[in-house]
């Protein structure tokens, strides 16, 4: 048993490692740019939902976690969260290519990244379906009196699902250490969130269940880090859930096949001007904690890393047919 004091120290809000977070956001962006390219060349098929523009949400939140004790769940737009959890991008790229060397043996593809060891619990293609799972994992943490938290990411489209509302109630009555993070990128496919919601501030939805909620600017990784830190602290210290609505924006269409005609160019430009990577980079330059030269070097290194991942994916062999029948039951 750890003493109360060390427990407090362990869960105290972390000071952010800004350069590390910049690198992580850049890695997500470069990884996805490469994936989009490979998709264009038909090396990747199916749905490819890109996270470009939203990087600060995953990176700022997950920076708090110790993935030996903490856990992450997300939906099908999962590349960013997987990378922020420290998954090897070789395995991720190989998964997109459908290779056996992929993180889900080529059986999951873009929507179903998983890494049991890194406590990355997926990757789920059904809107809202993973939200109760996150609470279930929080229940295990509570059951074993562990000092952990579960972050559960989902979109603005998922917030109307019964699974969300049922889970919030359960999380409150059982006091589960889980942080529900509604990543409001403003659109669920072609639907503006304002058209399908009775309220325009999702953070108040926690109130019906006695759960504190807050809106957060998701283009500013430092703000995300600060606010998620509060919620993580609350979960670990008090064992109670929080709902955050983190406002963000996706630059691309819903998936590669969506031309995104339902929004204006001006709107997109407005958000690109508040790009989370540029905001943090400018901040670091201004504070003289980073030079342009360092940034370029960092970017070059990341691009090389991504290229190596793509090469790995290309060179990995196709799975054998027997794999079809494996993993149905243990």
């Amino acid at each position, binding site marked *: 048993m750890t003493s109360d004091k060390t427990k407090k120290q362990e869960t105290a809000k972390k000071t952010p490692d800004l350069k590390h977070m910049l690198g992580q956001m850049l890695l997500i962006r470069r990884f996805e740019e490469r994936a989009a390219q490979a998709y264009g060349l038909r090396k990747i098929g199916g749905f490819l939902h890109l996270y470009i523009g939203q990087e600060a949400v995953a990176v700022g939140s997950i920076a708090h976690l110790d993935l030996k004790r903490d856990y992450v769940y997300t939906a099908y737009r999962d590349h960013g969260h997987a990378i922020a959890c420290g998954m090897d991008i070789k395995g991720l790229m190989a998964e997109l290519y459908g290779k056996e060397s992929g993180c889900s043996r*080529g059986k999951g593809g873009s929507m179903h990244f998983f890494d049991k060891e890194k406590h990355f619990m997926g990757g789920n293609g*059904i809107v809202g379906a993973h939200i109760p799972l996150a609470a279930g994992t929080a229940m295990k943490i509570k059951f074993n009196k562990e000092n952990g938290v579960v972050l559960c990411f989902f979109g603005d489209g998922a917030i109307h699902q019964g699974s969300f509302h049922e889970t919030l109630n359960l999380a409150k009555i059982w006091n589960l250490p889980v942080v529900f993070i509604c990543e409001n990128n403003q659109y669920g496919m072609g639907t503006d969130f304002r058209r399908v919601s009775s309220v325009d501030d999702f953070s108040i939805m926690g109130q019906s269940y006695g759960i504190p909620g807050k809106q957060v600017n998701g283009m500013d990784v430092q703000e995300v880090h600060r606010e998620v830190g509060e919620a993580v602290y609350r979960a670990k210290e008090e064992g109670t859930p929080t709902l955050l609505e983190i406002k963000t924006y996706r630059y691309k269409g819903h998936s590669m096949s969506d031309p995104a005609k339902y929004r204006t160019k001006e709107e997109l430009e407005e958000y690109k001007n508040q790009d989370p990577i540029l905001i943090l980079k400018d901040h670091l330059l201004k504070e003289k904690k980073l030079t342009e030269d360092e940034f370029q070097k960092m970017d070059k290194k990341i691009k090389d890393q991504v290229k190596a991942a793509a090469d790995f994916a290309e060179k990995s062999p196709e799975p054998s047919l027997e794999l079809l029948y494996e993993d149905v039951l243990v």
Partner: protein
Amino acid sequence: MAVITYREALRQALEEEMHRDKNVILLGEEVAQYNGAYKVSKGLLDEFGEERVIDTPITEEGFTGVAIGAAMAGMRPVVEWMTFNFSIQAMDQVFNNAAKMLYMSGGQFNIPIVFRGPNGPAEYLASQHSQALASIYAHFPGLKVVAPATPYDAKGLLKSAIRDDNPVVFMEAELIYAWEGDVPEEEYLIEIGKADLKKEGDDVSIITFGKPLQIVTEAADVLEKKGIHADILDLRSLRPLDEEAILKTVKKTNRAVIVDESWPVAGMASHIGWIISHKAFDFLDAPVELVTSEDVPMPYNHTLELAAQPSVDKIVQAVQKVMYIREA
């Protein structure tokens, strides 16, 4: 006759029925402003307005239940599920309310509703987004279930489904919206519960429904070159099932292969196999063969994905098996 796509045939059916009866409404995710995720409802919002073509939030169980309640009170909703994969969230409403309401209310409340959308395997989408659910829906008494495979059948059956006073589960397929076929200009209906003999032959009966009709047709061409002539029976409706047509073709050819892209266990194909062995046993010259999906969830990898599904080759082999022909 005009040559139109499967998608256009469905759109025409919706448009015509919405003109005919103002109680017909369409609702679902992205059906209105986005013109439908698969563009089946293109233009309908402009034509009928937002009171009859209704965008919903992503709440399958909720909006499906709302539509059933509207049907209880006399409306005739058409519910579009973006795909049948997501209808799994709405199953409680369909099975416990729509399917049983008439029975448990002693005949007082019938549910004139259509549940429609793409069903079945797609490409590179993995297990949650690529599954054929016909057997599950066909399991429940109180529902009608149809799965048209051509634009002609799609239009005629959708019009009948909308006019039907029962809940009808209408299964399209993600990969067939662009397929083309002849559709007459004048109005017509196709009766629910009637199979269609798509091709005649004396040697073997290949029985199927929905999207696999295409590979069955290709397989029949391959077999033709080997001198084997198949009857192709397209069931079109799974509930009610045209047992008469099934028995008729089997009694003629004495051999049957059933092709179903669902899983083999407790499936539509195995049920049909039982009907044949039960009611046409004396006519059979060989055990009935099934060609179904492999008994595994769908993998993402394309090679494995293809291997998991029925194929022309698998059908040809099954036919050769029931004919006791062994390829050298």
